[in-house]
């Protein structure tokens, strides 16, 4: 260290109201941190490799004949069937897992590294840091969903063409309209997925342990799946988070059935709002005694 170096870094006069950074700035840096970590890409790889595998297998092993699902039946007729099928498959487990990989890690990782004390002694409030982290985890989930959808669409269209497609109700929609519906379906799916992300952020904050938070979040989804299978509990199905993963089906009907989307919005809010509020309060009050 040079005691004779450059001019003084410090002015000792009290400065009037230095401008404090905005939450958006903190969020941008949360994204940069994510971008700088290898593990971030693991989720992206998981989200994008599945459509590729699916398309490759379907190309090699083209099964004709009747299939239960209307989109599965059209798989070789329109490339747009691929993203819909992939959303159907990945929405239950894979995409929640990908979202929780980052959500469960986003606070706990800084706890483990001791960097929480580093950022909490700067000029941003704890609430801002929490909000930025929750937003960054959600941004990641959004990116993973649309990455997966984009890969599936490109692979499907490249293999089987940009053709019109029949929806659940049997109506044929043009290719551009189909593409718009694919986008909208993924956007609707984000409602329950961002709820899973919120739960991941809560567990990350409360457990202070990345592995526990990731496993806990995925475990929660699996637990709801199992609860959904228990005979006699049919009455609670509409209120289970995992049931909301299918909220987008209504978009692929004619006329559009908005009811499941509206229903999922408020059911998800029942999970997400307490999770985020709980995480926020825990983060605000917690002792940063490690690191």
């Amino acid at each position, binding site marked *: *260290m*040079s*005691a004779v*170096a*450059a*001019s*003084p*870094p*410090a*002015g*000792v*006069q*009290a*400065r009037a109201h*230095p*401008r*404090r*950074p905005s939450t958006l*700035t*903190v969020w*941008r*840096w949360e994204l*940069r*941190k994510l971008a*700088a*970590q*290898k593990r971030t890409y693991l989720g992206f790889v998981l989200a994008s490799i599945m459509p590729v595998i699916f398309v490759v297998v379907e190309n090699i092993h083209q099964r004709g004949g009747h299939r239960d699902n209307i989109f599965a039946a059209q798989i070789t007729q329109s490339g747009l069937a691929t993203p819909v099928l992939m959303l159907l498959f990945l929405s239950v487990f894979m995409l929640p897992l990908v979202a929780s990989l980052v959500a469960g890690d986003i606070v706990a990782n800084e706890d483990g*590294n*001791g*960097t929480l*004390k*580093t*950022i*909490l*002694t*700067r*000029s*941003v*409030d*704890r*609430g801002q840091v929490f909000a930025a982290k929750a937003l960054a985890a959600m941004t990641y989930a959004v990116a993973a969903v649309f990455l997966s959808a984009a890969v599936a669409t490109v692979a499907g269209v490249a293999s089987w063409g940009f053709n019109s497609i029949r929806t659940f109700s049997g109506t044929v929609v043009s290719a551009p309209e189909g593409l718009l519906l694919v986008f909208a379906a993924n956007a609707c799916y984000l409602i329950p997925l961002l709820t899973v992300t919120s739960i991941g952020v809560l567990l990350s904050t409360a457990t202070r342990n990345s592995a526990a938070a990731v496993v806990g979040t995925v475990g929660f989804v699996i637990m709801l799946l199992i609860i959904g299978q228990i005979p006699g509990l049919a009455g609670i199905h509409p209120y289970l988070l995992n049931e909301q993963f299918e909220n987008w089906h209504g978009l692929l009907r004619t006329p559009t059935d908005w009811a499941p989307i509206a229903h999922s919005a408020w059911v998800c809010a029942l999970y997400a709002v307490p999770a985020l509020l709980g995480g926020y309060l825990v983060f605000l*009050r917690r*002792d*940063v*005694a490690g*690191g």
Partner: protein
Amino acid sequence: MVEEAPPVKARGLVKRYEEVLAVDHIDLNVRAGDVYGFLGPNGAGKTTTLRMALGLITPSEGVIELFGRDPMREGARALEGVAGFVEAPRFYPYMSARKNLDLLAALDGDGASSRIEEVLEIVELAPRAKHRVGGYSHGMRQRLGIAAALLRRPRLLILDEPATGLDPAGMRDMRLLIRRLAGEGITVLLSSHQLPEVQDLCDRVAIVDSGRVVYEGALSELRRQGGAGYRLRTTDDERALAIVRAQAGIEHAITGAHGLGFQAQESDVGPLTLALAGAGIGILALTPELATLEDLFFRLTENDHAGTPPSAGPDEGAPTTAGAPASPPAVAAATQRTVEIG
């Protein structure tokens, strides 16, 4: 103009961790311009106190304010003009030093990013700034911690054992840097186990033991109280000893291999020299021996609090004592030990 609140003021600060009472009713008064040493044995509660100062943990009782602002109530606003770190500074290992500072500067706002190159130069990390912090040595991270603190242009710098793990040159540089920053008017609150360094740098100290302040005040006052010892060599030590013992205000006179040792106030030493001269005894050497901070530290922290030196009075700036009641005999006994060693 209203007088500004002190950089650090703690009142009745308590932190409990389940059964552990880490900090036990601590009062601190760091004044503007102080280089304030915060000392205590392992587990005394220094880091815990500094964590409360920085708003990282919530006090169980009491308050600590920085420039009159409570970090618990005012959050980041209370840290305006304050920087530092507790325990080892931590960074994102997967990013370079510069990127780490970029990030912290963004979280500081107020033009901090324009100072990155400058602070990297100060801690001599500029040539390695592009490297990932994950590959940094302990000492390099320590330096980066200082750089990160300086980005904030602090008026109060809180450093928890900043020299830990630095090589001798690094320690010297750290000392020079702290002195220079203090010279620029920055108040420094320095927790350290390097007692000679503290003795060299600090003007005021708080010594904590088992979560309680056993001394707070001017270092010079502590040393004056704790060790007004003298060494005396004469032409006839045996007769001199009798005179010394008979002299009013002189205590704990003893002989040793290198002459006599005794304790006295400076005002009582003059009459003693006259008495010796009157008795025809020549004075070969009379040297005052202030106890080192290290001596005092051990006395205050290894005697089950019994060695608390008496308070010099209630007026502002006078040293304050807390914890166990003052026990002059224990001070005397410990002082005598020092004199014997001397």
